[in-house]
């Protein structure tokens, strides 16, 4: 076959085939692992946080192509953001940055958001002092 057909758009395919930030962070400051009851995907995000800012992020994903691409993209997007910023992170940003996902796969991006939030929650639990800027940002992690 001359042409190559792909299930997902080129950006998604790229992040699936060449995932960014794949792996674990040794001595991570926050780790979140979440699962999607819908289809059994599991996603784990590890964060290194310094001075209220995400210095590095890594993911591991058990899931379909769009789950892998979503976690790859989410970790890319989140690097360099403050905790407050990260707490307003939404799956829509992932979908947008990926140039769209099939409707039935949107939940993969939601999983990425949840994994990130879980990692942040873990960080805040371990570093209660960091919770104040969170409240300033008008968000509550414990709600």
């Amino acid at each position, binding site marked *: *076959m001359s042409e190559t057909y792909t*299930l997902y758009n080129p950006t998604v395919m790229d992040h*699936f*085939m060449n*995932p960014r930030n*794949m792996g*674990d962070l040794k001595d991570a400051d926050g780790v979140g*692992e*979440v*699962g*999607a*009851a*819908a*289809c*059994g*995907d*599991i*996603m*784990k995000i590890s964060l290194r946080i310094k001075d209220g800012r995400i210095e590095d992020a890594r993911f*591991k*994903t*058990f*899931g*379909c*192509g769009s*789950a*892998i691409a979503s976690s790859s993209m989410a970790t890319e997007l989140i690097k360099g953001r403050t905790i407050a910023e990260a707490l307003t992170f939404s799956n829509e940003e992932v979908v947008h940055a990926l140039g769209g996902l099939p409707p*039935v796969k949107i939940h993969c991006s939601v999983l990425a958001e949840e994994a990130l939030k879980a990692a942040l929650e873990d960080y805040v639990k371990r570093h209660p002092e960091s919770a104040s800027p969170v409240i300033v940002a008008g968000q509550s992690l414990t709600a």
Partner: protein
Amino acid sequence: MTRHVFLDHQSATPVYPEVFEVMKPYFTEHFGNASSLHQHGLRVRDALRTARQQMAALIHADSEEEIFFTSDGTESSNLAIKGAAYANERKGKHLVVSATEHPSVMNSVEFLEKQGWTCTRVGVTPSGHLRLKELEAAMTPQTVIVAVHHVNHDIGTIQPMKEVGRICAAAGVPLYVDCEASAGWLPVDVKDWGAAMVSFSPHRFYGPKGVGVLYRNKRARIVSILHGGVQEGGRRAGTENIPAIVGGGKAAEMAIGRLTARGEHTALLQRRLWEGLHSRVSFIKLNGPVPGPERISTNLNISTEFIEGEGQLLLCDLSGIAVASGSSCVSKSLKISHVLGAIGLDHALAQGNIIMTLGEGNTAEDIDYVIDSFAGIVTKLRAMSPMWDEFECGVIDSVIAPTGRGKSFSQHAAEVSGKASH
């Protein structure tokens, strides 16, 4: 990357050049409607009759008059189930099906259940074999049809049709056998089984899409489900798809001659493939019976632990290897194949499911290439998988080869998702 290996013959087969050749004149030249009384119609009527004879021969039917043409396997299943249910309402409104029938049977049954029918779904063993005692027990005086497929489309299990036929005959209930996954590859004998109805589609054995076949024994009563003209003896209205029917007939004729060779060729490759995968990839499991008389020689259904099916499928595709998967991520409904559910496959393994189906065109070199590529793909995906890590650290255990350490995948998945996996 140059090699292309098509291992999805359960989804599609290329039309044989010989088949296409006989179809050709029926597009632009012999384009008549079989209902017409003039030359153009009469000519294609002749072609229709020949195709009916070819179909009848493939399944050892007595007469071409027992062959009806539909548009595909799905329509044939719908016609068999609903046609029998509506025709025999006075006898009763109870159906019996095996739990691993194709969705075209299962969903026809669900539709009838909404209209007041009841249905007993007979369970299967972990290898996918129908529980015959349960089948016997399921039948009531109100049962109008039993549906048991010959070969399962997902896991390749061959059902003991003669025994099933005997049980149905003893209970006096007509038997419908979906042979979509077997016809053209395995012998089908409607009389030997005592089947009242049998369905299959030539697009599964190098024939064209656009035609399905329903054999109906003269004694079995069915009514039409697509209403309109009096085509197909009044049992299927609508303009017959002549080129596809002609091609399908030729594919059936060719299948008769090649049945043995097909079986032998694919059986060799099936063993080579499974042995290769099994020796190269750890924590891999074959679903359905071991290669041999209880499994169709074209099908391998495997679960590779700690990774998910769609990723495997996509990476296979990028290596030129076409496969399918029964994982929920692959289905539009986000549900695992109900067949994997019915054989009680652990959810983690159902998620890691891949289906490889062999055909005439596959070679031993193809198989070796697939084994190599697949081993690499598993390594790549496991490196990305949190489950692989957690298994290695002893947080979760393997289902395939339990180590006694850690919790189950399902338990873990339930914990991290906050809900039980399904």
